[in-house]
C-alpha cells in the first residue's frame, strides 16, 4: 500500500533550516532519513516545502477567486514537507514515520493514499 507521511514542524525546526549553527544537523538528519527510505526500496516520492510564510491560500466562491496570504490553517506546527512510501501495511508505515526527524520535535501524520 502507498502511504503519505506528512511532516508537521514547529517554528523552531523550520528556523533551523536557515540557522547557520543548526542547519547542518537539520539537513543532515533529513538526508540520512531519505537515504534510509531509498535504501529500503520503499520511497515513492516526496518533497520538502518552503515555509508557511510564503504560502498562499486560494478559495473559489460564487465564481470569484479569494486569495489570501498565509497557510490554510494557522496552527503551532506547520506542514513542512511530505514523503510518499510504499510498504505492506500501516504498522510498517508507522515504523518509518517514527524515524522521521520531525517525529521527535513536531508531529508526523500517516495517511494511506486513495486508490484511484
Amino acid at each position: 500500500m502507498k502511504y503519505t507521511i506528512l511532516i508537521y514542524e514547529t517554528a523552531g525546526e523550520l528556523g533551523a533550516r536557515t540557522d547557520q549553527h543548526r542547519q547542518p544537523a537539520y539537513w543532515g538528519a533529513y538526508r540520512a532519513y531519505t537515504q534510509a527510505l531509498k535504501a529500503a526500496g520503499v520511497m515513492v516520492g516526496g518533497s520538502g516545502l518552503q515555509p508557511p510564510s510564503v504560502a498562499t491560500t486560494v478559495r473559489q466562491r460564487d465564481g470569484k477567486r479569494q486569495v489570501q496570504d498565509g497557510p490554510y490553517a494557522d496552527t503551532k506546527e506547520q506542514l513542512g514537507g511530505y514523503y510518499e512510501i510504499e510498504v505492506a501495511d500501516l504498522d510498517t508505515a508507522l515504523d518509518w514515520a517514527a524515524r522521521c526527524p520531525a517525529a521527535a520535535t513536531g508531529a508526523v501524520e500517516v495517511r494511506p493514499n486513495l486508490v484511484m
Partner: protein
Amino acid sequence: MTDDARRAAELAARASYGRLLAYLARRSRDVAAAEDALGDSFVAALATWPRDGVPERPEAWLLAAARRRLLDAGRHAGVRARARPALEAVVDEAQGVASSVHGFPDERLALLFVCAHPAIDEGMRTPLMLQTVLGLDAARIAAAFLVPAATMGQRLVRVKTKIRDAGMRFEVPGPDELAPRLGSVLGAIYAAYGSGWDDVDGADTRRRGLAEEAIWLGRLVARLLADEPEALGLLALMLHCEARRAARRDAAGGYVPLSEQDVSCWARPIVDEAEGILRQASRAGRPGRFQLEAAVQSAHAMRAVSGRTDWEAIVLLYDALIRVAPTVGAEVARAAALAERGGAEPGLAALVAVPAAVVASYQPFWALRGHLLGRLRRVDEAAQAYARAIALGEDPAVRRFLEEKERVLRTG
C-alpha cells in the same frame, strides 16, 4: 437441555464465531465484510446449538451457512460488491481448513492486537473486541457503555473502515513490541470488566455490565499467552473481584464496602483459582501493573483465612504499583491503606498530595476524603466532601451508602 448446557452451547458458538472472524478478517483485512458473511449463520447457531447441541465441527457448520449466504444472489446487498469475490475465496479456503482433521486455527490473538492497536481510538478498543471476538451486537455493547445504540453502531463502523482502509496488520507483535501492545489489550479487557462492576445486582437494566464477557476474554488471552505473567495477573485480578460479587450487597440491596464484607459470602473456589493463577504468574519473575493489582486483592482475600487485613503489605504493594503505573485510582487506594495502617492523618496527608486537577470528578477521592475528615471530626469539611462524592456517584446503592455516612457524621 439444562441452563448450563444452553450457556455452554452459546459460548461454543461465540468461540467458533471469534475464531472464524479472526481467520476471515486476517486474510481479507476487512472486519466488516467478514462480519457480514458470518452474521446470519452466527444468529442461526445461537438459536439452534443450545437446542440441538453443538455440531461436531462447529466452524465447518458456520462456514457452510455463511457460504450459502454468500451465494444467495438475492441477498448480496449486505456484502459490498468489491469485497465479495475475495471473501468467497477466503470462505472456501476456510471451509477446507475446517473440514480437515486438525482443529480450526485460533488466530484470535492477532485480532485482539488489532482491536487494541494504538492507531485505534482508546475508547473504541473494548467495544471492538467485544463485537469481533465475542460476537456481541452493538446494542448490547452500547448499553454497557451508556451510549445510544445508533451512536455505538456508527463508531464501530468507522473504526472497522479505518482498519480496512489504513491497512492495519493482523499480527501478534514481535518480542520488542509485545509488552506495550499487550498492555493495551489487557487494559481494554479490564475496561470491559469495569463496565460490569457497578451493577452487581443487575438492578439497573440500562447498565448490564460485561464482567462475564471480560473474564471470558481474560481466560482466552491467558491461555493463548500463557508465558506472559501480566495476562495471568489480569485474570487473577478479575477473578478476585468476581469472587466478592455476592458480598458487595446486603440483603436489602445496600452497598457493602470491602472492609465490612462478610467473608463467608466470598466464593472460595474462585478465590482459590485466582490465587493459583497469580502464583503461576509470579514464577516468571516479571511483576507488572495487573499482577500488583491482583496481589493487593490477594492480600484482601487473606482476611477470610486470618481474620485480619495486612495493611502494611497492601501499602507496599500500592507503592510498587504507583512506581510502574501511576494512576489516580492507585494513589487514592494507597491513601486509604495508609489511613488503615497508621491513622486518618497520614492517610489524609497522602490524599491531599494527589493533584487537584485529576481528582475533581473522581468519586472515590471525595468519598475517602469525607471518611477521613469525619474520623478527624472535621465535620463541615467532611460533609462537603461527602456531598461532592454523592453528586458524582453513578451507582444508586453507593449513593445511599454515602448519604447514610453523612447523616451519621452530623448526628454522631
